[in-house]
């Protein structure tokens, strides 16, 4: 039994978990949510075991010392670690609060992560760490950064659930804004899905396709059709808002829990991201003697860091407007995400 086999089992389990959560969201049957929770626990345990096995495989395969062998070096491993952290948050929230609606969205993020690893043609085989970056700071930086982004995504999902759970008048200004935010979010997911199928159709030979490349391949007509489709989707969401809210309210999760969880996850994520940046500075120092070199990666991390600091600052300063804070947290998440895709197109 090797790590690839265990990761394969995990992938299937997470897809099944998502399907059961989706069924729970549609039918409103809480028993399905609990069943999905147990499936999630099984997946989490299997993935943890897969990581331990892979850790040992790297250590024995390349004779590296144990602290430098933690499997977060390749794209595949980093996506798996991100999925592990997100799944851990999902399991915790399900066991402690029974937040099935948010868990359904979180499990979607987990599935997106594990399937994207395969679609993007990420190499599953074990790869050693290059000599240049064989130090403890590199390992810590990767662990902290990936877990911080798992926290941010989870916080964003709770913000989204909070926005969707608020019962408001269709004609109100808030509903107009809320449906726009959700439409933008859904559009980004749609672009990623296009990316996914494009990569799948090329059997992973093209590797990761950044957003800018997809957009630049659109003709003028293609862009016009995309904009019209977006507006239609926004309008549908606007009209169907009562139905969407009903689905989320049916599972009966308190709105204050959503706000508290979102703030808590963003706080933990921010501390972890800061730790990642500090480790990055030490790593850079040990490799090139400089703690900051204005590299694209550093700039992007600084941007994401400032976005999330801004979200936390807004949460603290506008307690009377949790809706505004939640919406802004989603916008920040998208901004950080889009900037990451833009930066990757430069790289």
């Amino acid at each position: 039994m090797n790590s690839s086999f265990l990761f394969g089992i995990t992938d299937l389990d997470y897809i099944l978990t998502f399907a059961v959560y989706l069924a729970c969201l549609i039918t409103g049957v809480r028993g399905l949510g609990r069943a999905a929770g147990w499936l999630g626990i099984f997946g989490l345990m299997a993935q943890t075991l897969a990581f331990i096995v892979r850790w040992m495989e790297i250590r024995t395969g390349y004779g590296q010392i144990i602290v430098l062998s933690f499997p977060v070096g390749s794209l595949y491993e980093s996506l798996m670690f991100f999925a592990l952290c997100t799944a851990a948050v999902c399991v915790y929230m399900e066991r402690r609060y029974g937040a099935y609606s948010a868990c359904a969205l979180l499990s979607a993020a987990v599935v997106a992560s594990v399937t994207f690893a395969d679609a993007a043609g990420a190499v599953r085989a074990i790869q050693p760490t290059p000599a240049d970056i064989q130090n403890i700071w590199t390992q810590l930086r990767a662990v902290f950064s990936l877990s911080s982004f798992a926290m941010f995504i989870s916080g964003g999902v709770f913000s989204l659930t909070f926005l969707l759970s608020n019962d408001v008048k269709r004609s109100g200004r808030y509903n107009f804004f809320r449906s726009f935010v959700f439409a933008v979010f859904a559009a980004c997911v749609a672009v990623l899905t296009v990316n996914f199928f494009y990569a799948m159709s090329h059997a992973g030979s093209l590797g990761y396709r950044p957003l800018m490349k997809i957009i630049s391949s659109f003709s003028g007509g293609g862009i016009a059709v995309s904009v019209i489709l977006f507006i239609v989707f926004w309008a549908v969401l606007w009209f169907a808002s009562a139905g969407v809210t009903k689905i989320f309210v049916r599972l009966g999760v308190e709105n204050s829990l959503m706000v508290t969880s979102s703030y808590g996850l963003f706080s933990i994520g921010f501390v972890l991201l800061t730790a990642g940046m500090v480790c990055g500075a030490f790593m850079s120092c040990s490799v090139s003697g400089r703690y900051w070199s204005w590299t694209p990666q550093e700039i992007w991390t600084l941007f994401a860091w400032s976005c999330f600091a801004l979200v936390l600052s807004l949460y603290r300063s506008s307690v009377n407007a949790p809706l505004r804070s939640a919406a802004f947290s989603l916008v920040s998440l998208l901004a950080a995400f889009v900037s990451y895709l833009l930066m990757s197109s430069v790289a």
Partner: protein
Amino acid sequence: MKKALDVFLSPTAAFLFIAVISVLAMCLSHLGAGSGVYSSWWFILLLVLLWLQAAGVFARSILVARSAYCGSAHADAEPAGTVSLDGEDAMSLVRSALGGYRITETEDNGQTYIRAERFSFAVWGRSVFWLGILVLMTSGFLGFIFGTYGRMAVNESAANSGLVTANGRTVKLPFSIRLDNTDTKYYKDSYILSSFRSDISVGGDKAAVSAGSPAVYKGYGIYQTDRGFFANPKVVFSIVTGINSNLKKVDAVFGRRFVVPGTGLTGEILDFAPSLGQDGSGRLVNYDTPMMNPAALLALYDPDGKMLGTKWLFMQYPESGDFKAFKVVFADVTGVQYAIFSIVKDPFRQIALAGFVMVFIGCLLTFVFRHTRFCVRYNPTDGAVCYSVPTEGGNIKPGWEAVAAEFIKALGR
């Protein structure tokens, strides 16, 4: 004016400014601007503005922390909730519910006031955070003014003293670096570097540079950041040859034969490939420029000068030079690799790293070891326990619901 200053000196505005600067840097990066842009006057001016803003936010955070640390806030605040407790042991129940807190009790008009506090040192979290940012920016600026940073490419068996700085200027160092030998190793069947080491002579001293282990000379740190291959007809091959019990080291160059001791034979290196492999049809090809599988083509001649044949010798496979009666082992090659060194002299680097650590400690204090404080008022006549937590505009601040819920749970309600 005061309102504008209030907005400018708020943490929200400071984070927004950092985001704007990073977006600007990202755009510059997109437009292909060199790293010299980051040392241009207008970019530095933006950073100075940010420094002033951070200094203002830091000063205000100290004032806020002092009032939170010394003041008796919330003592008369509106209660966030009320719990009814009956029985004589109500106060001991409240005290046990506040187990992890430092408690101060006072009595007034027959009512008991309890002030509970935890992690009081964490009120300085924001100040430490912004001080860290200031330390980081200041030491970065001082390092930029008084320090030296640049890159230098040095060929094997050659020396260089010209340092190319971030804005493309070449600065002459007070010493030269000679690259005596560089050695790179890759994982088997992989493009991934497994180890590297460069032996250098700097200012007459010998030193070695390897992964995570720079050489230091007169306060300058010398780090190897890259490496490569260059074509050089004056390459020197280090060959170990002779009959099995009597091996000798000889230096071989193109166009000159060397003697295989004890055999009467002579040899000559005819060709060299840094990465020799086989293509799909089994033909030998040089597939890359890094030294992934270095090989030298050896020709052997009899005592009359007649060529006996040729054979590729692989550095990674010494058995490729085993001729049963004698050996010709390709041990090393000098003069075909170059190394790129990052040379840094920054007297403020340790302070900047301390700034990074301070920022992290500030985050920990603000978000993990949160200063938690709330007040409880117990009225023995009706058994009401009123508790208040920090509020703003009548709403409990985010995160404080959990503190209140924890208290109610501990009371058994």
